[in-house]
């Protein structure tokens, strides 16, 4: 009886895992099919000969290399920028005392409730007012600070006793030196997870780049991919190849750092 129960559990989990993974596997398999194979009935599961040329063809039809570079630059700059502003703010909120600190914290908590999907439109108006549409600053500026990650970091830092700061102060250690030499090493795991999640978020960002970019050259990978999907019509195998190009870097990151990523999300209930 116990064995049957255990077997059923495995059957269930494996079935659900297949449902979860099938789109990814099929994407990779489809990216290597000929057009005939990709649209055959019954569906082809594994191509007879791997058509690696599909990747070259997709890259030829749309500037995915350019999208790739854009995305790395923008996601990288946003990640770095957010980390700097967040560390500085986190330091001030945990180590220093100042007037209106409680009020400021309350305001920040309230800002957490503001949905990104709504302010993104008025942010577009702001960027348009600044004359920055279709530029790298437009893509990067709005994601250089994050209320969410300020809380993420301060929560982590409150575990670091204030006495460390006071002791460092007594020894004549400046604020920036304290941040660099004591605070950063102490919160390295939190910063690392934060960096990973920020970068992945930036990589997958879609609504913002589609609003503020007009020209092909400024697209990020997600909106480049969605444009390619409508331009390439029925060339399913090329669409699969392009989707794979978009996803594989993140899958590689995940394969290496899955522990950090899962822990980071599980601890903080991030959704975004």
């Amino acid at each position, binding site marked *: 009886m116990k064995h049957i129960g255990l077997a059923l559990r495995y059957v269930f989990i494996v079935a659900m895992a297949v449902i979860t993974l099938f789109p990814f596997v099929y994407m990779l398999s489809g990216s290597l099919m000929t057009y005939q194979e990709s649209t055959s009935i019954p569906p082809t599961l594994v191509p007879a000969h791997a058509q690696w040329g599909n990747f070259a063809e997709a890259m030829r039809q749309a500037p995915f290399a350019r999208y790739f570079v854009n995305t790395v630059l923008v996601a990288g700059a946003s990640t770095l920028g957010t980390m700097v502003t967040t560390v500085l703010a986190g330091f001030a909120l945990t180590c220093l005392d100042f007037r209106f600190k409680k009020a400021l914290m309350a305001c920040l908590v309230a800002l957490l409730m503001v*949905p990104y999907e709504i302010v993104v439109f008025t942010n577009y108006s702001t960027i348009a007012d600044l004359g920055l549409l279709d530029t790298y600053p437009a893509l990067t500026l709005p994601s250089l600070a994050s209320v969410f990650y300020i809380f993420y970091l301060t929560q982590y830092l409150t575990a670091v006793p204030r006495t460390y700061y006071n002791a460092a*102060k007594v020894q004549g250690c400046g604020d920036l030196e304290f941040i660099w030499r004591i605070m950063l090493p102490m919160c390295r795991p939190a910063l690392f997870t934060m960096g990973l999640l920020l970068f992945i978020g930036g990589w997958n960002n879609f609504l913002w780049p589609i609003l503020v970019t007009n020209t092909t050259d400024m697209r990020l990978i997600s909106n480049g991919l969605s444009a390619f999907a409508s331009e390439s019509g029925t060339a399913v195998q090329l669409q699969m190849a392009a989707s794979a190009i978009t996803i594989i870097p993140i899958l590689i990151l995940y394969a290496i750092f899955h522990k950090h990523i899962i822990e980071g999300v599980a601890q903080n209930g991030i959704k975004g």
Partner: protein
Amino acid sequence: MSAATTSPAKTAKVSTATKVSTATRRGPFSYSAERQPRAWLFLAPALFFIALFNVWPLIRIFVMAFQTNSLRRPKFAGADNFAFVVADPEFHTAIANTAVFAVVVVPMGMVISMAIALTLNGRMKGGRFFEALFFIPYLTSVIAIGIVFRYLLNGDYGVLNFLLGKVGIGPFDFLNDPRLNMAALLIFGVWSCLAFNIIIMLSGLRSINRNYYKVADMYGATGWQQLRRITLPQMIPMLTFLAIVNFINSFKVYTEVYALFNGKAGIGNSATTAVFYIFNKFYVDHKYGQGMAAGVLLFLLILAFTLLENALLKKLSK
């Protein structure tokens, strides 16, 4: 240094108890509240961007919602935009679809995720491995996966229709039949929401005190009884949190629709959602005022749910 004026010996003699306690807690070399205004210097970069891209846009939504649709020379429009949006049949469709999405995807997603999380949490080999697998959809581009789903759901050569044909149903033209567009979106929605739920549920299940189960085992409680009497009651705060986070996210569904229907909201906007409505008003029709009026309504709806979440969680954690 001003800190020197409050030496420990002196403060200990000060009669006001509060002064003593703060001074001793912080130590003689710390600075008192008003003396570290340089904190603002460290906060400045973050606050600058937060003010410009979180606070200002929020204010602006409310301003634009009461203005005419012109960006250059907006005039005060009173509640005209709201009147238009509330009477707009397309907005009704958007809200109805958003509600259907929330009502179908959230419970289905929660039940399936819970079943997976409970199974993985048991004494199962490779639990961590499967956990890592189930989490993949959370990290991958919705657009890329949406393109794959369009392929899977294709009415002519899609795998799903092939499988359904095997059991004698269909074929369904999920993408080109407006009556089936929502069904396609719901399938995609349920599939996408599992990853996050499973991870959060597993971390909740792992935080339940093992001793409860040991005692229950000792008294011969069955697995089912343990689930009902220990696991579920312990998980209620977390499940409430998840349910509401899921609901709020359902109100914000947008990219899934865009990906699945190639930049449209289904055939004849049949699968439009609240955010898609705002996007179309704002970006396609350039009806900024109307778009933002819809934005205000959606914002208030989400705010109500967020406040409800906080109130519920406070009550449950007592």
